[in-house]
């Protein structure tokens, strides 16, 4: 696995890509916050929010449906919210007798369920867009400017850098297991469950000691190159008037969404 699998969209150029990462983080978080603040069933406001999202998609040159296609990742969790349909508040819409249990969906419950799904679906899309249009080191740098402790941002930077190295290490270990697990067709191999668990545990331990010793070597190498406790960047990250404009317009749109949601 290579770092490219996340970076394939981050190097294209567009109005969204070239925004200051701080502004992008702020607008994304404000958008998610605005969704959380909208009352249940304010469909028009959700619609305006979706339009904002489409506009951002369009400006990023990634295609109108870019985030829509990738937003299915949030779907499995929706199962958890299904039980909200049967909220006791609200008028019953009918009785579903499943044989072993009786479910009574209510109108308020249905509205709640749909609203939760819409909020989650809109929020995950802006997060997808943020990551697709921002290089990860820039994102970390933006978080540092937004007063995240430097210790934490440095850990995250290391995590990102070595994630791919260690993932390849995992593939090596898995390949080694495969290579030693010959089995005849029709005969299940691999020993008992306990044996398999012990093997997996040893693999985790092996991975741990290799990572630990690698971090030692990394530290020595960094010391000899002048590491003083944090990672430096040559990117100045200066907020320009265009960035301010985007921030103000986005804030105005989000206010409008709130107004639509609470008044209409």
């Amino acid at each position, binding site marked *: 696995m290579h770092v490219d699998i996340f970076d394939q969209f981050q190097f294209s150029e567009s109005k969204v890509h070239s925004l200051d990462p701080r502004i992008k983080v702020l607008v994304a*978080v404000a958008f*998610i916050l605005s969704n959380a603040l909208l009352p249940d069933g304010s469909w028009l406001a959700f619609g305006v929010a979706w339009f904002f999202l489409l506009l951002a998609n369009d400006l990023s040159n990634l295609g109108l449906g870019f985030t829509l296609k990738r937003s299915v990742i949030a779907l499995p969790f929706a199962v958890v919210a299904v*039980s909200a349909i049967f909220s006791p508040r609200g008028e019953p819409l009918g009785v579903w007798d499943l044989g072993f249990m009786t479910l009574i969906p209510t109108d308020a419950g249905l509205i709640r369920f749909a609203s939760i799904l819409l909020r989650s679906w809109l929020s995950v899309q802006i997060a997808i867009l943020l990551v697709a249009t921002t290089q990860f080191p820039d994102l970390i740098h933006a978080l540092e400017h937004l007063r995240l402790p430097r*210790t934490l941002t440095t850990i995250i930077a290391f995590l990102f850098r070595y994630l791919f190295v*260690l993932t390849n290490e995992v593939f090596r270990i898995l390949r080694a297991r495969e290579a030693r697990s010959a089995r005849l067709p029709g005969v299940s191999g691999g020993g008992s469950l306990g044996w398999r668990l012990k093997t997996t545990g040893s693999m*985790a331990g092996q991975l*741990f000691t290799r990572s630990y010793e690698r971090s030692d070597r990394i530290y020595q190498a960094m010391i000899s190159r002048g590491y003083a406790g944090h990672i430096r960047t040559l990117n100045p990250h200066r907020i320009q008037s265009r960035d301010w404009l985007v921030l103000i317009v986005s804030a105005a749109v989000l206010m409008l969404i709130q107004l639509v949601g609470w008044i209409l």
Partner: protein
Amino acid sequence: MLYAPTYLHIPDGFLTLVVSVIFWAVTIIMVWLAVSKTNKSLGEKQIPLMGVMAAFIFAAQMLNFPIAGGTSGHFLGGALAAIVLGPWAGILVMTAVVGVQALLFQDGGLLVMGANIFNMGILTAVVGFGLYRLVVHQKRGLRLAVAGGGAWMATMAAALVTALQLWLSGTTRLEIVLPAMLGVHALIGIGEGLITVAALAYIEQTRPDLLNAEKTAREGGRGWVVGGVLITLAAVFLSPLASGSPDGLERVAENLGFLGTGQDAPYQILPDYTIPFLGETALSTILAGVVGAALVMGLLVLVGRNLQRRSEV
């Protein structure tokens, strides 16, 4: 498969703003404490170590092992990180892991990240490390057994609090989701516990210096033990109370007629999770929880003794 999401990563939209903000506040305080503690006690050398360890937790989550019928064990790693690196460093490592999972994989939301970090980083560190710290000067077998039990308990505590957060936000009905969450994670937790034990056993063999009792005891004081034991007790008390109304499985059985005609299984020590002579009161449910927890702990001690004896031979 690159990465398997679990039901502990709450996406945006599933928690109300109030719940999100409360857990952000708790998380920010704990992470801030962790940053200042690690800055004070550890040198800059620790930062690359924690970063690589965070990548390790990430990569280790790909080490799935087949159990049966398509399900596979999954590894969260919070307890293991806290035991090996110390609780504060463990919290920082898990914060980075949860943050990157949300940012890169969209597994877990941004506004609800405070709650996710609390569940998967802070709770697991307190429970996993706290219980381990309790027996840190004991024999190897007992330590490993408690570490495994602690990792299981940490997974259960995370599942319980996740269910409570969803319920507080009005997203779910507690009586449906809590038993489901606890049931699923009781299984996931077993894998977590066993991998934690096997990994610790391996580390102890190859790098005994990392699991030195004095070093571990220095990294977190008695406060962690109190916290770990308190949360464990709270989880044991709360789970039966919260799912006090007939839980999903039981309702299925009841409606299908199993409960009426089926015989009691011979291994069912605490029928219906209540003590028979106390009747079906909250007290009885709580007592049943305590007895159950005591049984599990007793079992762990027995298993630990057994392992100990075998390793001495």
